[in-house]
């Protein structure tokens, strides 16, 4: 994500009129459990036929030696079925380390990876979390692209995900 920020910045300066973007906030709740592991989280955009339009983020255990963390990627079972199983890990600019409890902000700009150029249409952004010896939760937010005006959408998880906000800018 950090690497993408300069791009976003450049675009707002150089071509503000065309820089449709989306800001996503994903909350990982603090859980009081005996054995806590940070969740694996995947974020992607689905077309109406459930095909994947963009793979936005995959947080998994990248520190384990010999890529052993990839063993549990399948636990994000919807992501795995829709796109994960076709990927070679790590995915440049998409995958990264697991994150602690808290609010995590992601920003994606039209025409730039990993969002790319999204054809106008109706989509769902999907956030899926799977936690070792814990639960599994998926939240979806439907949206139209490009947004005609600044739009705020949200969903609220009940177990492995907290508040999810999606802010679209035309």
């Amino acid at each position, binding site marked *: 994500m950090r690497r993408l920020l300069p791009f976003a910045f450049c675009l707002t300066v150089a071509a503000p009129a065309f820089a449709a973007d989306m800001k996503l906030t994903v909350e990982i709740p603090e859980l009081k459990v005996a054995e806590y592991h940070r969740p694996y989280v995947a974020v992607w955009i689905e077309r109406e036929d459930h095909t994947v339009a963009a793979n936005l983020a995959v947080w998994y255990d990248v520190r384990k030696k010999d890529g052993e963390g990839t063993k549990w990627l*399948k636990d994000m079972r919807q992501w*795995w079925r829709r796109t994960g199983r076709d990927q070679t890990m790590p995915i440049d600019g998409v995958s990264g380390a697991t994150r602690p409890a808290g609010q995590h902000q992601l920003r994606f700009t039209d025409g730039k990876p990993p969002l790319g150029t999204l054809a106008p249409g109706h989509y769902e952004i999907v956030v899926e979390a799977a936690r070792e010896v814990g639960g599994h939760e998926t939240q979806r937010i439907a949206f139209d692209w490009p947004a005609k005006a600044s739009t705020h959408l949200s969903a609220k998880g009940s177990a492995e995900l907290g508040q999810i906000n999606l802010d679209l800018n035309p």
Partner: protein
Amino acid sequence: MKHAFVRAALGAALALALPMAAQAHKMWMVPSATVVSGDDAWVTVDAAVSNDLYYPDHFPAQLDQLVITAPDGSTVQAENENKGKYRSTFDLAVPQKGTYRIALVNQGVFATYELDGQKKRWRGNATDLKAGLPANAKNVEVNEMASRVETFVTQGSPSTGALKPTGKGMELVPVTAPNDLVSGEKATFQLLVDGKPAADVKVVAIDGATRYRNAQDEMDTTTDKDGKFSFTWPAAGMYWVNASADDKKTSTKEAKQRRLGYTATLEVLPQ
């Protein structure tokens, strides 16, 4: 002595698993995972004949009939094979991307006869039939049998390289990938006998956790003219899918009838 006993018992178990008493014992394999990720993935598999699905309570499966096909079509070996009292187990490394087919392939003849007024049975290879039956056996009835018990494991995206039919006995050809099944979604497969579509064959599917229900809750359907059938999975779970048929296409001249059986363990994941 022990060997003979095991053979006889397996024969009985197999006979029970076949059409005559399909409601009794069920033969199966259950892998620890059907969908795996990571380059160093392994699965461990239980194989048994039991009453309840999938709790070994009757007889272990014979692992000498194990045939494992990797996504590239090559035959691979299981590791750490063990035959216990009630179940057999083995481990399998699944390094290749694609779908692995794990099968217990049984082929042979089953004979019933009378000796001094007592009913006896014999099971073995067709070539051993003459030597296996006593000279004064009466009312000899010989059946050929071909059964296949399978399960599937996929690393990465499903593939079909390992799923090409052998053309022998009853087999399943997936239209829907066998490791891409989700509750509420319809899955379609094709049933073949000797490589040709098997029409009008009854196929049953039972959600595995029978121990925790009072009824089998069996779903059934019949193959169409192309041998195709579909199930829409009502819930996630490990499903036991079974079909059987009889025909007269025997390759052993003493056998009048052939019994065919096919069983798959298919995992259905939640939405």
